[in-house]
């Protein structure tokens, strides 16, 4: 058995870490959200006015709903791209499996910013896409709405987060024993029925984990709107950023952060419950 001192010593660093870098900042954030700014100074006076502002000013709710819409779009598109890819690789790629896997992983090594700028050069009015469209005479003038629109944000974030959706999905598909697929065929099910009745249900935990990644990561993203989104696609995190920055309204920023945190935590709680229920093996 380990001694008491040993146990204390071993558990001290993680406890300190969590306390100092997680619990303390969260506590500060929570406390700030009940304070207010008066004459450019944070006043330590308790009130709920930050929260009532959030619900009274339609701007905040609009941005929140837009953020959710973008997050849902990114999640669905990443699933639409990631699932067929993961399915193909797990069940039909054969010897090419490892190579394809590397090809999916490699983009994760490229900086987020670099990938953002890449989309800028693709979508811009002088960009690759417009150049191509004009070259093949689909359009005469550069199309301006490719860049600086929610569309661009969704496109860029889908590109960035598809590997995050792919990885847990692929893992859960790889874990499905192949004799279950054979058993299904043996009992008279064709490929479609086998997919719908065996493969899909058994991959739900991975699907849920991937979808949660894409949704939560998009929810907190502020770089994509800045790089390719423009004013029409401002997201919640942009507002938080500006409130903590130029606007210098930390209490309001903290209140928004608390709301987002609650949303995210309840979502994670829910998906974890579901994942546990769907984990059969």
């Amino acid at each position, binding site marked *: 058995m380990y001694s008491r001192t040993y146990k204390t010593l071993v558990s001290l660093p993680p406890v300190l870490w969590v306390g100092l870098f997680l619990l303390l900042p969260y506590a500060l954030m929570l406390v700030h959200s009940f304070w207010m700014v008066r004459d450019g100074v944070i006043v330590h006076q308790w009130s709920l006015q930050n929260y009532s502002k959030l619900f009274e000013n339609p701007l905040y709710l609009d941005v929140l709903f837009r953020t959710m819409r973008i997050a849902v779009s990114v999640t669905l598109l990443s699933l639409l791209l990631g699932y067929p890819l993961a399915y193909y690789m797990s069940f039909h790629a054969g010897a090419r499996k490892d190579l394809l896997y590397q090809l999916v992983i490699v983009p994760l090594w490229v900086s987020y910013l670099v990938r953002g700028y890449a989309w800028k050069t693709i979508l811009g009015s002088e960009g690759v896409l417009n150049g191509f469209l004009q070259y093949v005479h689909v359009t005469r003038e550069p199309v301006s709405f490719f860049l600086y629109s929610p569309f661009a944000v969704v496109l860029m974030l889908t590109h960035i987060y598809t590997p995050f959706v792919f990885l847990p999905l692929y893992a859960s598909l790889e874990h499905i024993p192949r004799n279950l697929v*054979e058993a299904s065929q043996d009992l*008279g099910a*064709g490929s479609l029925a086998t997919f719908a009745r*065996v493969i899909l249900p058994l991959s739900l935990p991975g699907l849920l984990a991937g979808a949660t990644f894409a949704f939560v990561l998009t929810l907190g993203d502020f770089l994509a709107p800045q790089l390719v989104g423009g004013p029409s696609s401002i997201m919640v995190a942009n507002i938080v950023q500006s409130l903590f920055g130029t606007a210098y309204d930390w209490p309001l920023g903290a209140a928004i952060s608390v709301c987002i945190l609650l949303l995210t935590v309840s979502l994670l709680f829910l998906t974890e419950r579901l994942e546990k229920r769907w984990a059969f093996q």
Partner: protein
Amino acid sequence: MTPTGSNPPPLAENSGQTWTLLEIRRIAKRFGSRQVLKEISLEIACGEFLTLLGESGSGKTTLLRLIAGFEQPTSGEIWMSGQRQDVLPPYQRRVNTVFQSYALFPHLTVRENVSYGLEVSGVARDQIPGRAAESLRMVKMEEFAGARPSRLSGGQQQRVALARALVNRPRLLLLDEPLSALDANLRKQMQGELKSLQREIGITFLFVTHDQEEAMALSDRIALLRDGALEQVASPREIYAHPATRYTAEFIGQTNLLRGEVQDGLARWESLQWPAAPAVGAVLFSLRPETIHLVANGVVPPGAIRFHANVRQRIFAGSTEQLELEFAGQLLRARVPVQDSLAGTEELWFLPADAIAVRE
């Protein structure tokens, strides 16, 4: 004019015959450079319990998977009552499989597992519950209908797998070492149940195992596979009593191999000789341990070959004991009733008919 020449053969000759359900015609399978099956031909009769017996790597599971449709043969054909099978996908074959590790769907209950085959093959909705229940009753698992497979013991999962495979009323049931994961006692019990179930429902069973005792206990016929080729196909009694090859004699049961010489209808081995079929030259004989008897134990039939041997070792096995004998510098094994006492040298006998000539 011959009076019977144009007449059809008498009915009595045909009435006892069984008809062929599955016909394997010169099936070969190659994985890369490895030849797993070498042009195998085999017929399975309707209602038969046939066992594919062989060591691991002999190709028995591959042959089963070819029949189920999980693999495609490199050459050859598989026919089932007039219909070619090897070109059909697995879900169109009237064959079902009990998998070695059961392969029950973990996300479905026992009842849903058993209903699965009915649902995907378009059986009328109102018939499904009844047929699933009937199938579960057959394996005595109806009380577990609502449970998930992970809650069941190995033996119970085995029964559910059986019920699931039988629910579609296949023409042929394939069983891939279904008992190998069970402990010895349960295995014996399941062997008995499997055999009586097969008799009851009359479905043809093709059973794969590496366990020769299991094969002997269950089968109507055994097909012994060796390195992708059929070594011998015969009933358990026949294959045990008359092994065609040395491999068969050694794989199924225990045996003594005597390297003798046959000339002028007389077999010679060491100082012994006995009448033998008119083969000529070097012949290998298989002599089962239980066909060697102690002279002291009773009457020696006429024509028996008698010899003296040194008793080297006695191994007690309950109802019998095994003797390790030395005769002319060679080791012989004999299985005899348990003896009170034995001398250092005993006189023994065997019948010439029990010395079976086998091919190398």
